[in-house]
């Protein structure tokens, strides 16, 4: 019994020492790893990086551009086969234009992709300030990868994603990383290899990065890195469609003069004046909220969108007066933007069609005229005219 206690004590001691030893080993390895990447004070001074090089996908080379910022933003332009791809991340969310998904417009990143972009946005090592960022590192052991003796470290990020990093025992620089990547937006385990470390004014960066996931092979060869350049913050914002941008003339703070049409005398007469604010409510949706008197109070919320499949604008107008929603479709030409009401679903019983015409469009204003047709568009009866004049 005494002997057993003695062995237990010894075992506990060994385990304890072992843990301390591993703990020290981990910190020491990470310290040396960070030092191997160059002067940390210099890294602190880096606000952003512009990386240019050559990217290989599907065995074809093409130019590569990426911008990373200290606050975790990322933007890149590259080619995947014969398609150009743009992608960006603002540190929290992001977007991509990826024609391989048969999506020609920018779409938001999913959760899988978000984790990838957190990795892509990193300046040089996930172990830099990893504790402050809520990540956890563990020392796994020593091993050999493709003939290179390496330290194996496990990194659990604050997001819960787990990565295995293999650091070259001689240089303490990363040799390989096993992590979760995405392939056409779906999760895919990836192996990434780092090579050709070069000195950029005291900052050591791998200029050959090769990834394999599923059957994919991607190689980035970095030619040049510029530091602390002027970056247009707009590059990180999801681009608006060309068609919605054509409605930019609507945006602004406006004064609105409201006139109504009196048919017996063929006369327009003032009924109210109001204010309107029109702006993007979403990447590709412009919204107007306006309220004016025309016999009754007309409070309206109008959303302007473009349907790329039907190649027409779609506008919805919510009326606070009637609590109804009307849908309009239309097109924009050189001088006017014309919308006509359309039925929803199987309802073809609408007694009249409403036409809204935006014309006299300048930077400083535009006119909006409402008209109705009771005879299937053979004739139009003017109803109301709103004259918008810029206030901002």
């Amino acid at each position: 019994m005494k002997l057993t206690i003695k062995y237990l004590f010894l075992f506990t001691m060994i385990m304890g020492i072992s843990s301390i030893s591993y703990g020290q080993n981990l910190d020491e390895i990470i310290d040396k790893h960070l030092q191997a990447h160059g002067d940390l004070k210099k890294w602190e001074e880096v606000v952003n990086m512009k990386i240019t090089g050559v990217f290989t996908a599907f065995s074809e080379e093409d130019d590569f551009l990426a911008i990373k910022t200290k606050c975790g933003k990322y933007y890149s332009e590259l080619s995947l086969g014969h398609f150009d791809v743009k992608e960006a991340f603002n540190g929290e969310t992001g977007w991509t234009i990826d024609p391989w998904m048969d999506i020609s417009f920018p779409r938001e990143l999913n959760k899988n992709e978000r984790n990838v972009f957190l990795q892509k946005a990193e300046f040089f090592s996930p172990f830099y300030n990893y504790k402050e960022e809520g990540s956890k590192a563990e020392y796994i052991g020593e091993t050999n990868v493709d003939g290179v003796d390496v330290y194996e470290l496990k990194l659990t990020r604050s997001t819960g994603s787990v990565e295995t990093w293999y650091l070259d025992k001689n240089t303490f620089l990363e040799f390989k990383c096993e992590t979760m990547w995405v392939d056409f937006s779906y999760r895919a385990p990836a192996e990434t290899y780092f090579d050709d470390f070069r000195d950029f004014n005291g900052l050591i960066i791998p200029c050959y990065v090769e990834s394999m996931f599923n059957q994919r092979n991607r190689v980035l060869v970095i030619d040049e890195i510029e530091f602390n350049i002027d970056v247009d913050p707009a590059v990180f914002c999801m681009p608006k469609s060309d068609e919605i941008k054509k409605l930019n003339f609507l945006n602004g703070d406006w004064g609105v003069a409201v006139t109504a049409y009196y048919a017996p005398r063929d006369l327009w007469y003032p009924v109210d004046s109001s204010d309107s604010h029109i702006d993007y409510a979403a990447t590709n949706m412009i919204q107007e909220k306006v309220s004016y008197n025309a016999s009754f109070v007309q409070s309206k919320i109008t959303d302007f969108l473009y349907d790329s499949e039907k190649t027409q604008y779609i506008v919805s107008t919510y009326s606070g007066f009637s609590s109804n929603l009307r849908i309009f479709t239309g097109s924009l030409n050189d001088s006017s933007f014309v919308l006509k009401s359309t039925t929803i679903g199987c309802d073809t019983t609408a007694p009249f069609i409403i036409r809204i015409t935006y014309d006299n469009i300048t930077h400083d204003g535009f006119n909006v005229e409402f008209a109705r047709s009771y005879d299937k568009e053979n004739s139009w009866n003017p109803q109301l005219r709103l004259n918008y004049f810029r206030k901002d």
Partner: protein
Amino acid sequence: MYKKLKQIGLLLLIMGINTAVIGQDYIPDGWYQFRGPNRDGISPEKITKTDWNGNDLELVWKKELGSGFSELVVSDGFIYTMISEKIDSVTGSEFIVALDEKTGNELWRTKVDSIYIDADGWGDGPRSTPIIDETNIYGLSAYGKLTALSRKDGKFLWQVDFIKFFGSTTPRWGYASSPVMVDNKIIMEVGGTENRTFMAFNKADGSILWNDGAGGASHDSPLKATINGQEQLIFVNGRTLYSYSPDGDTLWTFKMPFRSITAMPILIDDNKIFVSGVRTPGFFIAEINNNKATQLLTGNSMKNDFNSCVYHDGYLYGYHIAAVRCISVETGEVKWSKRGFGKGSLILVDGKLMVLSDKGKLAIVEANPEAYMEVASVQAITGKSWTAPSFKDGKVYVRNLTEMACYKIKK
């Protein structure tokens, strides 16, 4: 009258001898079909050179070539392959061509089909590699037309249309399976309807000798192998490995742990088959005894995409996605792994791997499980290079979508 009978007798005798020669399963010279004489990526030639200095590959010639992925068939002083030429962005033709082995100059070309234009942009034109016999060449276009031509002058002999005649459907990226030849038969994976997935055609006139199987056309090429003394053709289709006798009898089938692969099955020793794809698991090895296949090993240490491994002395050498690797056949253990060749290809000549990167770098590497040892290399061709090299008379032949080249190993 007697004289005439004598002449007829002589003619019959000559025809008889001729028939006998053809009947003896004439084996053409050199790299005469997809993946070489035994469809295993291995040349039987010897390399006598021992003093390598890294710069041992010398350009013999380099020529422009129309787009296509067919390997270069090299035999009797000629090169045969398939190419395409575009007329505009949507039209063009596919050809079987013959070239002078010494110069790469074109000798003849015969149009065999309309051009296949790849919607994904991987590359236009034919994917399959033709096969030759003593007098003819047989090639499959990317739109599924199997054509026989005279080797001498490209004269059209016969053609069968897999889509029109057999109800086959063009697979994504086009028909890619390369013909295999046994006796008087050209055997193909057709992917047709009504038991016409696998078919044997008479070399003489393209008539059907046998057909069997259900399943569409894949991208895989059949292996011809002798297992337990029995000649057989091994196809991969869907999730099944099929073995047929040359006469069309099913010998055995095996349910694979994955489906739809592109790399060819590899014969190991006398009775084992290695099959690899890019999914999980990456490969399996099955042993065949008494026409029954049993799985021996499975693993993820080798995942072939579209190019196949070679087997040498207990080890497989090939592309694990985009890393050239050596793995043990016994255990699947990775012996070494070398990146930098992308998704290229390789063949084996006398213990040396001829490794072509997906960007046209050609390297000679020892087929040695101990370590990756490169003895020579050259930037052989430029641009995306997915077609495996061919080897004949000490020379390596490479091609891609725009050019081809011949390199000799310096003495």
